[in-house]
């Protein structure tokens, strides 16, 4: 089962490698991992997307909690939540492809954020599936490069991950 874990951790050097080291040392999967400081500069928030049985996920969250730098761990995918990922994709855009790319971007509610006479950079946010289907919908031969942020997750409604 796919799970989205959200962590609050001390914004200190090495905290990220403690988490990533734990996953590799214990043979857990990381599908994606994102991290950045929060509005409280002493804390970072990390979203880890991982796979495993309920027992494995329980162990992962216990092991994460055991790390001294980790302040809190929740499995946001246990309840209604929102997931978003950012995609930046640079595509070749010449001739008829130019208009086609623009149309596809509009259909997926993306934005073109960089334009040259032969290329676009398209920005798109959404769930993993939405980004996957956009990539599937455009002509793969036109993709020059692409980068994805990995998933950010947050619980819906009253559920709050805070100190």
């Amino acid at each position: 089962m796919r799970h989205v874990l959200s962590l609050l951790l001390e914004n200190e050097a090495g905290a990220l490698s403690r988490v990533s080291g734990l996953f590799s040392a214990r043979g857990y999967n990381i599908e994606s991992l994102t991290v950045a400081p929060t509005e409280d500069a002493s804390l970072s928030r990390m979203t880890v997307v991982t796979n495993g049985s309920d027992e494995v996920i329980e162990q992962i969250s216990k092991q994460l909690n055991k790390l001294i730098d980790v302040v809190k761990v929740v499995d946001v995918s246990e309840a209604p939540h929102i997931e978003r990922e950012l995609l930046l994709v640079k595509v070749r855009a010449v001739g008829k492809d130019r208009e086609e790319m623009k149309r596809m971007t509009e259909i997926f509610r993306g934005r073109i954020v960089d334009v040259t006479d032969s290329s676009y950079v398209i920005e798109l946010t959404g769930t993993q599936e939405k980004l996957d289907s956009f990539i599937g919908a455009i002509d793969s031969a036109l993709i020059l490069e692409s980068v994805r942020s990995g998933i950010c997750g947050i619980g819906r409604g009253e559920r709050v991950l805070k100190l």
Partner: protein
Amino acid sequence: MVTSSFVCNRRLGAGMTLTGAEIVVRCLQEEKVDYVFGYPGGSVLYLYDELFKQDRVRHVLVRHEQAAVHAADGYARVTARVGVALVTSGPGATNAVTGIATAYMDSIPLVVISGQVPTAAIGMDAFQEVDTVGITRPCVKHNFLVKDVRDLATTLKKAFLIASTGRPGPVLVDIPKDVTAQRCEFVYPKDISLRSYNPVIKGHSGQIRKALQLLHGARRPLIYFGGGVVLADAAEKLTKLTRLLNLPCAGTLMGLGSYPGTDRQFLGMLGMHGSYEANMAMHYCDVLLAVGARFDDRVIGNTAHFMQEPRKIIHVDIDPSSISKRVKVDVPIVGCVGDVLDDMISMLESGGSTGPGKDALDAWWRQIEEWRGRNCMSYKNSDEVIKPQYVIEKLWEVTGGDAFVATDVGQHQMWAAQYYKFDKPRRWATSGGLGTMGFGLPAAMGIQLAHPGKPVACITGEGSIQMCIQELSTCKQYRLPIKILSLNNRYLGMVRQWQQIFHGNRYSESYMDSLPDFAKLAEAYGHVGLQITKPGDVEGALREAFARKNDLVFLDFQIDQTENVFPMIQGGKGLNDMILSAEDL
């Protein structure tokens, strides 16, 4: 000469400052550290200079950094205090890694201070630079790189707190050389709290009640205890509960001594080389109370096989991640072993619950006595050749069962665990988790320094002892009268045993030719060396050794080369599938 404390006070008088090195030594003094085990080098010169100027913290100069950490570890195991080691950057730190990993696997509280190249040189591939924090990260409870002298005192306070609380473990503090020379005001925090670190101490009372209900209804209950009982200093409580309920109990290698080894209710050690009755009881019990133990693969054998037998498991541990890690648990109780046992005892004593019914328990005990009747620890003694089991039995007799025993790793370690009956906790220091050859002698040094005048035995083999034999020199320098019992069979015995059983008698690289004359080697270091070849001389040699109160005596026992450790559970087999003797092979 002006003492450093005088200098410090004067400087501190009016917003005066201390150097980082002075701060480190002051912190160690505040923590009442009496011994630091270490080895100097370029990055720690300021620290060593400050150590030189005071005499409250005594430094023990080892011959290899691995030994510094093992010695601090041995010290910690028998005193329940934090062991402290000090090493230099680069190779000093990498040599310490084996010691740190050893302590980590056995949850031993250590603070390891390592020097680092100056902050400006970090990342420049400087001389003796290594990413110590990176290298040690997976084998420490936590580590720190202190880049600002103003963080130094707080960081050391945190290090001692983290090392010694919750599930204990080693904490490393890496200090760049320039930080030890910089100055700042020194304030040692009295208390410190970390928002992300709050070990649970008190067990959930509802869960404890559930556990007692399970025990009340049990027909074949067993207490399975591990190193956590030793670490929590909860041996008395464990003993009290076990006797209150008249339950059988069995211990892990790490737990030995938590319940008196000579008592009837103790079934012996569990696991791969544990006793028949302990393993059978573990396999066939219907309610298992696991206390401060972690269902290690060497204890339960094949997990799937273990889980085939229906039984309810109650698991008390301070580390939530130890619970339901290898086996699914029915009643998890997160908390300090001592506190939880206290709560159980008081609920029982107040009449809130009672133990299992007498009839069921009597029947269970009859079954256990039948298993015990197999006499699995019997061995064929000999008049011709020294049997290793006999040496350990005699050691137990000669020391009245009251010695501190450190071991290395291998056959001798298992024989020590099987035949030395520990009645008290913190008498036994062995590398259980990591299985580190070379642990024994340096650990014995730490133990002897912690308990001067007390009998300390290092049970080892000719393979293991050579992994840290240089420490014979340290023992001479500090006049440590350790008794080294080397069970010398000229083989890496446990390797040879596995090769015999599982690899068709092909003894690949497990025989050691050209061994030194260990007795003479010990003499060369300034100690007493004895070589014992006849069974009839074993007891006399041991008596002579322990009578020499001020000498280190190296006893080189030339033992039976082909003796194997039995009972034995083969890898992948279940607890009820034991080889009791060579005839079962």
